């Protein structure tokens, strides 16, 4: 099932990339259909996994990546239905496919959770944070598309790619919408994480590297929100902040554990 889902996502990605190259709308529609099919399979896969381990599948790196992919694809399908932008899929689907491949390869065996961590707050924490991450991954894609389109308009080199990209205004609006959805998710996700920390480590805040990076990430998105509301920062700056924000977010999610030792065991 896991392999099948991955293959369907990869097929969707191939179709979307072909669309980028050939500009045949049929390809993008087929790509979206493939992602939708993958999403259905993926939903079943997550359900089965939950039955198998008798607990929301959130506690291993493989499971988290799989869940993140599911949220990302789901989020993308909603956005594409609402805005009808085809080309966003060409940016989202490679990310989804890459995540799914890593989820497939990476360990998913769960060491039994320490009793102290057996809390309802863990799945809540993970779900909220991963939803936020999926939303910001979409914002990251919108940001990259914005920069492409903006560069081409500024340099007056109107290549074929720009023809397929949505207007700057739409991309900017999308970025803002995603920020207003992703930020609360991330905020509540981190708060839930602190509740878990309080019960497991005895303190809401303990300057753990993971916590510090989470704070940095949160501050970056807070700055974006604030500068937009007060100074009207939009367009290119907002796009860059979305890109930087997501890179840092990804580091907090995956990188911290590689570089530093954290009490935050898995991911």
């Amino acid at each position, binding site marked *: 099932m896991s392999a099948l889902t991955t293959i369907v996502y990869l097929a969707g990605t191939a179709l979307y990339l072909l669309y980028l190259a050939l*500009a045949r709308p049929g390809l993008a529609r087929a790509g979206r259909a493939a992602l939708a099919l993958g999403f259905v399979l993926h939903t079943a896969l997550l359900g089965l996994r939950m039955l198998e381990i008798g607990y929301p599948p959130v506690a291993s790196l493989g499971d988290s990546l799989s869940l993140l992919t599911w949220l990302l694809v789901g989020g993308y399908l909603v956005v594409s239905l609402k805005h009808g932008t085809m080309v966003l899929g060409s940016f989202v689907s490679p990310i989804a496919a890459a995540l799914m491949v890593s989820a497939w390869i990476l360990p998913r065996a769960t060491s039994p959770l320490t009793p102290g961590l057996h809390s309802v707050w863990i799945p809540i924490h993970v779900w909220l944070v991963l939803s936020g991450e999926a939303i910001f991954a979409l914002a990251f894609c919108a940001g990259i598309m914005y920069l492409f*389109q903006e560069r081409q*308009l*500024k340099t*007056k080199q*109107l290549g074929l790619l*720009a*023809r397929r*990209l*949505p*207007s*700057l*205004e*739409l991309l900017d609006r999308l970025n803002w919408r995603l920020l207003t959805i992703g930020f609360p998710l991330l905020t509540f996700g981190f708060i839930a994480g602190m509740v878990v920390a309080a019960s497991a480590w005895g303190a809401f805040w303990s300057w753990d590297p993971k916590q510090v990076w989470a704070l940095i990430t949160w501050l970056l998105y807070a700055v974006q929100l604030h500068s937009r509301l007060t*100074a*009207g*920062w*939009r*367009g*290119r*700056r907002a796009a860059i902040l979305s890109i930087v924000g997501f890179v840092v977010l990804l580091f907090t999610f995956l990188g911290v554990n590689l570089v530093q030792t954290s009490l935050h065991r898995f991911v």
Partner: protein
Amino acid sequence: MEIVLLGLNHHTAPLPVREQLAFTPEVLLEAIRRLCKLPGIAEGLILSTCNRVEVLAVAPDPDLGVRQITAFLGECHGVSMAGVEPHVYVHTATEAVRHLFRVASSLDSMVVGEPQILGQLKAAYRVAAGQKATGVVLNRLLHKAFAVAKRVRTETRIASSAVSVSFAAIQLARRIFGTLAGKTVLIVGAGEMCELALRHLRSQGVGEVLVTNRTYERAVRLAGEFRGSAIPFEELPQGLRRADIVLTSTGSPNFIVRREQAAEVIRARRHRPMFFIDIAVPRDVDPRINDIENVYLYDLDDLQAVVQDNRQEREKEARRAEEIIAHEAGQFFHWLRSLDVVPLIVALRERAEAIRRRELERALGRMGPLTEAQREVLAALSAGIINKLLHQPITRLKAESGAEQGALYIEAARRLFALDAEEIEQELDEALADLEAPEGGG
């Protein structure tokens, strides 16, 4: 039965000549009626736009048809066709079909890819069909033409690139703003160029229109024409703050929008994007404002470069469109040829003969031993029935095929006797191959 197309367009005839032959909507009805009453014309249609006048007809004898249409045009407009004829083109058969498909797909338009021509052709068809001037052939041909135009539009990007400066400006504006609905436009200058660009912008449904000019009266006049509001030239800075799109075309020797000014404006607008279109020579807007974030500036050269790119793209797409059209025209022509009477009669005879033979054998089988003479009588009887029965329809078909409603008879006969078009086409192909073989050999 041949399709003929006779006309003139912006490629072949200057405006004064086109004007002479143009049909106004009022006279079009009467003209159509007269056209299809001509003895040499079976079906007819008149397309008259500001860029072309074309008469499309089905004629049993193409040469006669062309002569009659030429005379008809001269009579309708009271002009001598001798002076006009050098500007007139005549297409027959596949060429006529291909030409019509090219017109419908906007490949023959002055602005290639512009969509209006399809609507005009549809209207022309409605008028002709309303007068019952179109029949089996033209009905099918026109519907095919509409389908081909749609195919060209969806399968090629012929219609998506702008090849005039003002269209290019709109295309760019849409890349920035998406839709132009509700956007505020500021026009600086009140010359002819501004008027033209404003007309295009208006057709895109822009919101408020502000006009300013050194001579206030001219600003008022232009604003009045487009239901906009004029502002005094001194209030340009305030105008800039409100404008999403700024179009400048003044005769000023200096920049009228400076870099610092634009930077200030964009801050005051809380960085909402601005699109400057500077079509003035010398330029009105400091080129350095393009470096300001959320400000996009295109001058005349930039726009012309975009147009140039689009032209190349369009030429490439036009070649693909031509391929589609050639293919579809070939298919249509094949169908048209299936309307020819000879293969139909051959097919009809063969069908009857096959039935006769089958039934005869069945009857003989049931009768037991018969003498040779008796068999011959039976064979002659069956053949006689078939021949007598088919004699009238075949004579009529031959006679009518050359006349006005010939195609209708042939189509009807084909359906009545369930003679498959493919069968007839096959028949035709073989006949054509026979005809061509000796030539090819020699």
